[in-house]
């Protein structure tokens, strides 16, 4: 197992980076961070729509969220894989395809977190802010969202872990992230699948476990305040 790590450790960590595309664990992280960063603004808008009292805002957002929650991510990756080139009229790289798919998919889940964060605040906050003469957007911007966002942080971190796990699906369309690297190494060595995939599992485990623990610690910290 150690010799595999010695020979292919760098490949696992950054893929064939200086000569090829950034990959491996770094590729996985890049995918996840892009996924979370880009889907959050979308989720914020969706979350606000889901808590809105206007029907024409509420319904499209609800349909969007429920549809995406009902579909496997793999389906959405395939839709993106075939749909985006048709929409744009030219080919895009597999990496961008997967980022788009993850952004669309996670926007639904993150918007539920945003909604829960907003609904977790007491109604008195809204009433007080409105009574002080703030408009809807001022209420959101200065009163509700700052509090909701702080409360949401642990859930966001948990969702980030889900995104990291979700990026392993990018392997199916050939993005150079850590799962693909592992299967490449596996086909190079042929005889040691157990060791290779255990290394892969261990990498995910260390990453996700520590993030989960961090989320737990953050939650306790916020609860104490």
């Amino acid at each position, binding site marked *: 197992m150690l010799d595999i790590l010695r020979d292919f450790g760098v490949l696992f960590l950054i893929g064939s980076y200086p000569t090829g595309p950034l990959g491996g664990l770094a590729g996985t992280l890049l995918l996840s961070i892009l996924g979370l960063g880009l889907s959050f603004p979308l989720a914020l808008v969706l979350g606000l729509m889901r808590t809105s009292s206007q029907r024409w805002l509420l319904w499209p957002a609800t349909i969007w969220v429920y549809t995406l929650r009902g579909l496997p*991510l*793999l389906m959405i990756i395939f*839709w993106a894989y075939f749909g985006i080139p048709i929409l744009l009229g030219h080919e895009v790289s597999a990496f961008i395809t997967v980022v788009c798919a993850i952004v669309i998919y996670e926007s639904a889940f993150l918007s539920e977190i945003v909604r829960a964060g907003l609904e977790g605040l007491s109604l008195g906050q809204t009433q007080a802010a409105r009574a002080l003469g703030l408009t809807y957007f001022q209420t959101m911007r200065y009163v509700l969202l700052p509090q909701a966002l702080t409360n949401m942080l642990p859930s966001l971190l948990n969702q980030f872990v889900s995104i990291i796990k*979700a990026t392993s699906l990018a392997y199916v369309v050939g993005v150079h992230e850590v799962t693909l690297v592992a299967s490449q190494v596996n086909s190079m060595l042929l005889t040691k699948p157990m060791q290779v995939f255990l290394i892969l*599992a261990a990498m995910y485990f260390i990453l*996700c476990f520590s993030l989960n623990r961090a989320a737990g610690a953050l939650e306790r910290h916020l609860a104490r305040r």
Partner: protein
Amino acid sequence: MIFALLLASTRALPVRPLRLLVAAIVEYHRNVPVLVQILIWYFAVPQVLPDPLRLWLNRQDGEFLFSMIALALNSGAFMSEDLRSGLRAVPTAQFDAARSLGLSQIGALRYVMLPQALRIAVPAIINQTLFLFKNTSLAMAVAVGELTYRMHEIENTTFRTFEIFMFGTIAYLTFSFSLMGLGAWFSRRYPSAHRI
């Protein structure tokens, strides 16, 4: 599900090494992507199996069996967490009462704690079933002939991408929505007796 019951009950028993073991199993399944788990079962596990068993598996469809094991263990681990929070929601006095009535630890779990915990945990478990259902699409990666894989096959032979994708999407959605509906119905039909 059976695996989940087993895990959750073991974790509730006051035997420390067993609890640690279960915690480790659960953490492994929660922190490693399902796809990787399937790949491990499919590529890595046959390597350590004895030869006759491996040959036998190759003659059967091993893909299906391995994906099934991987998915079962994975959702078992997640469900055991749901059950555990269900168990925690049942007051511990119930357990003590059952013990003082002369039930053994396992008996107390089996007849007193678990039935109550199950009921509390049902919405979470239905939700988990939804995830399991969506995760079956991953078995495609090792070429099990499930919906997503079949879609791909038909698409490769007919090139009618959109119709097929539309059909697959609708098929998934129909089932998912029915599950979500079931969950919603259950929580309306059996509102939790005591707010937690």
